[in-house]
């Protein structure tokens, strides 16, 4: 290049690497914060600790964290806390699995065939209007007060959000993709696997998040019914003897379940939906 005034300045200022941008005010939430997921819960814990330390939260109102920890240890070694935890966990896992499978299958049937929709969608909407918890007395009459009733209740209560959101996701799949698939001469099975399922996945995963919460709600309620094991059983006993700290241990465990389950679903969501370029980032 011939030497000009411009050339000279470029050579002189090369090492500084000026970065002058004209940026718009950011309206989206911006880039992801590391460990953001833990910040809220950690803050909550901090408030609890500080509140108990300063006496702002009286022990009668809410047991102090360290007393909860102590109580946890006592329950663990003297009252089979582990057994209670696994009993509750088993109910949630069985119920949630059943409910998820049923909700997903029903959503597929009713989303992909007009006949299926005619048969399935109405009853589900009716079922949705009746709170599952109101059905428990009926289930007790049908299935007794054993594990069967508990698992079925949890399954039913978690099936609804799976069904609603998966169905919604299915119906929201762009019709143009179906048209494309038709021009590519693919079979129904391939269409289902490569277009319908990935397209409905965001809806399904959203449904799963709701379902996890619903299952927890169901668990808390069914465990009040003559349980011999489980976190709910532990809490019911504590209520009778007025042991607040044990109740708080149960609450913390319930909270942990819900939080970890939601985190797991969100992780799956992030991995499975990495093709999406949304505000999620």
């Amino acid at each position, binding site marked *: 290049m011939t030497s000009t005034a411009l050339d000279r300045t470029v050579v002189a200022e090369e090492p500084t690497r000026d970065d002058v941008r004209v940026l718009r005010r950011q309206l989206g939430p911006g880039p992801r914060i590391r460990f953001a997921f833990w910040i809220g819960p950690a803050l909550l814990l901090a408030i609890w600790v500080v509140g108990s330390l300063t006496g702002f939260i009286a022990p009668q109102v809410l047991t102090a964290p360290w007393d909860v920890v102590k109580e946890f240890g006592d329950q663990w070694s003297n009252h089979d806390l582990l057994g209670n935890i696994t009993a509750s966990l088993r109910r949630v896992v069985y119920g949630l699995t059943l409910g998820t499978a049923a909700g997903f299958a029903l959503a597929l049937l009713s989303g992909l065939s007009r006949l299926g929709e005619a048969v399935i969608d109405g009853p589900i909407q009716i079922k949705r209007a009746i709170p599952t918890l109101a059905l428990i007395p009926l289930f007790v009459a049908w299935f007794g007060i054993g594990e069967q009733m508990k698992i079925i209740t949890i399954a039913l209560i978690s099936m609804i959000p799976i069904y609603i959101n998966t169905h919604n996701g299915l119906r929201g799949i762009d019709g143009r993709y179906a048209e*494309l698939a038709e021009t590519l001469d693919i079979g129904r099975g391939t269409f289902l696997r490569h277009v319908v399922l990935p397209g409905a996945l965001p809806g399904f995963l959203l449904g799963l998040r709701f379902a996890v919460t619903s299952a927890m709600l169901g668990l808390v309620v069914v465990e009040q019914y003559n349980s011999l094991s489980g976190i709910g059983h532990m809490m019911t006993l504590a209520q009778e003897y007025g042991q607040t700290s044990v109740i708080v241990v149960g609450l913390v465990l319930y909270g942990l379940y819900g939080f970890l389950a939601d985190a797991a679903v969100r992780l799956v969501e992030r991995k499975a939906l990495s*093709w999406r370029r949304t505000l999620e980032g």
Partner: protein
Amino acid sequence: MATDVGGLTATTTGVTVRNLHRSFNRSGGVLNGLDLDIAPGEFVALIGRSGSGKSTLLRALAGLDRDVQGYGRISVPEQVSVVFQDSRLLPWKRLLANVTFGLDGKDAAERGLRALTEVGLAGRESAWPAELSGGQQQRAALARSLVREPQLLLADEPFGALDALTRLQMHELLRKLCAVHRPAVLLVTHDVDEAIVLADRVILLDGGVVATDVRIDLAQRSQADPGFAGLRHQLLDALGATGEHLGSDFIAPGQRRVS
């Protein structure tokens, strides 16, 4: 790689359409007894005013007009590929999976890679569609339709959303690919210049039938050819783009209505 393809397409049939009627409501037909022949390997551009039924015809040939009323006879080759105005890549599949979607056979991936190379997207096979520019997405869509070795390629304004420079590059690419694969092509376009530059034949849809059918015999496929201006004028005339149809309310830019 393409030498045997020519022999393959030479034996196939082209497109035949007879007395095609299509209408969306009772008030009037969109296609009214349309006849059309496309020879194997022939490149036909379809022009016409907005709403004249170009997409309707294309969808009929693609077999996508199940729900549209009408009758008539259509015969198309076995292998038909469609390129839409939007690239229609599945957002949840990486590029190579999009291109080979619906292909079976062990060499599907290899063929897909070759097709991506042909359209200049070598090395991008594991990109998500959302990571590509509009022109790249459209090229991927082209690769997806060509990897199936179609005997008929239907394209509905495939370059409509692209900028002028990318369009020119896509023209070049499409012409090259068609010379190699030799499919019959029906390309819908709004752009008369694009039609003349690309096609062997330009047909104009008006009143639901082929109103004008012009063979393009230019020595060089560019605006530099002496015959280009004449053809362009003829087609624009047939489209009615000479001004009076714009209506009496139309005020040309930079002019004031005289009162």
